[in-house]
């Protein structure tokens, strides 16, 4: 397998040893390693060892967009760029790649595809809903990793040019509204699916309950966890139901 393919495959385990000291750093070095073998002197050479040590230093970004930094760092090492410039490149990319990835994937694409999957389940698609979610999500996910590595590999230290691509800008504009619409649309559909067959009174009480739940969470402030509050409410209901018997 060519070095590009081996680096790409290893990017999928970028976070295997995620830790509070180097974060993704060790995984970054592990992913870049196959390409570094081509450096002068091979895997026993001084350039390879120096580059490997450098690439395993601290790094943290969005795991999919990290491929861009790995590709750029590999290219810079191959081009014999000064070590301090490569270090600076890695440091500089952490923030933007984390921010873009978080906005595009965690805050938009994941909620949108997840909500779509939920709506499909509710509309009767059964297991196809989960398959559709997986396929839809991962087509974009894998394409992002491949594009990122290719773009970094091609641009090297000028990788910022790749971040200014029209496609990425368009995606940034569309992603958040798309996620809002799909999540919003999934809400009533999922609600009706959960209460299928229930009486009108049950529907009304559940709707008021959902609104109250959201309002209480809002009043509790940004640090309140919806899952924690829901877990407590569910557990209390469950225990109360057990004691009732």
């Amino acid at each position, binding site marked *: 397998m060519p070095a590009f393919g081996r680096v790409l495959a290893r990017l999928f385990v970028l976070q295997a040893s995620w830790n509070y000291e180097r974060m993704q750093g060790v995984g970054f070095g592990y992913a870049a390693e196959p390409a570094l073998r081509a450096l002068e002197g091979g895997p026993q050479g001084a350039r390879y060892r120096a580059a490997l040590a450098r690439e395993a230093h601290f790094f*943290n970004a969005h795991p999919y967009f990290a491929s861009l930094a790995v590709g750029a760092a590999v290219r810079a090492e191959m081009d014999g760029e000064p070590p301090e410039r490569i270090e600076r490149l890695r440091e500089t990319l952490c923030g933007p790649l984390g921010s873009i990835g978080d906005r595009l994937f965690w*805050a938009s694409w994941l909620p949108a595809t997840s909500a779509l999957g*939920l709506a499909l389940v509710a509309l009767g698609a059964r297991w196809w809903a989960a398959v559709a979610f997986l396929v839809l999500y991962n087509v974009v996910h894998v394409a992002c990793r491949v594009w990122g590595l290719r773009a970094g590999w091609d641009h090297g230290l000028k990788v910022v040019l790749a971040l200014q691509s029209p496609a990425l800008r368009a995606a940034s504009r569309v992603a958040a509204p798309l996620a809002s619409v799909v999540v919003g649309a999934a809400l009533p559909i999922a609600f009706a699916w*959960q209460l299928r067959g229930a009486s009108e009174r049950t529907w009304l009480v559940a709707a008021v309950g959902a609104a109250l739940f959201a309002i209480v969470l809002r009043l509790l402030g940004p640090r309140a966890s919806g*899952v924690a509050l829901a877990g407590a409410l569910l557990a209390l209901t469950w225990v109360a139901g057990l004691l009732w018997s």
Partner: protein
Amino acid sequence: MNGLDVAAVVVLGTLVGLDVASVPQAMFSRPLVAGLLGGVVVGAPLPGLTIGAILELFAMDALPVGAARTPDWGPGTVAVGAVAGSHPSGIMASGLLGLVVVAVVSAWVGGLLTHQVRRANVDSVVRYRTALEAGDVRALLTIQRQGLLRDATRSFALASIALALGDVAASLLARRWGGSQDLALIVLAASSIGVVLHAGWRRAGPGLQGLWLLGGVGAGALVTVWLT
């Protein structure tokens, strides 16, 4: 569930747990998929998918942004999905409530254990720091392998415990539940939809994004009315 089913659920739960962050982050660990997989193992995908879909609503609350420690839904959802599927007569709302509680607790514990795994990974880095700074590829490989092994152990423990608790919740306690099934249904629907409503609004805010969200809610309501 026979012994083979239990082993398959735990192995699957372990693999799904690895997906959360270690490898390959392809969202097999999302409740929608994990619940279905749990159901498939015991030959009843639909109950697994049902509980997975309910848990997916809760999972939309927290985003795995940056270095945040978020709940790990995967292993627990595989386990409760399998438990739901293994009850041939189907699970009533009260049983579903019990399984959701087990999955929520499991997800929360999973997040705490992830923190411990990450701390243990720091120990590995400290132990091999000299070798790492010398560019020793063996040190790199060892740290990666140890990290994977720790995460696999975490997921294995989580799937095993969730399976045991889920079985107790569904088969023993659900039969003793004295509350009404409607109450269980209302609490499940209100809390899950309330969580997404709040999360969606928190992300969208009151501006244009909020309007997109409201527009989506309106469109979804129309679809629901049209279908019912």
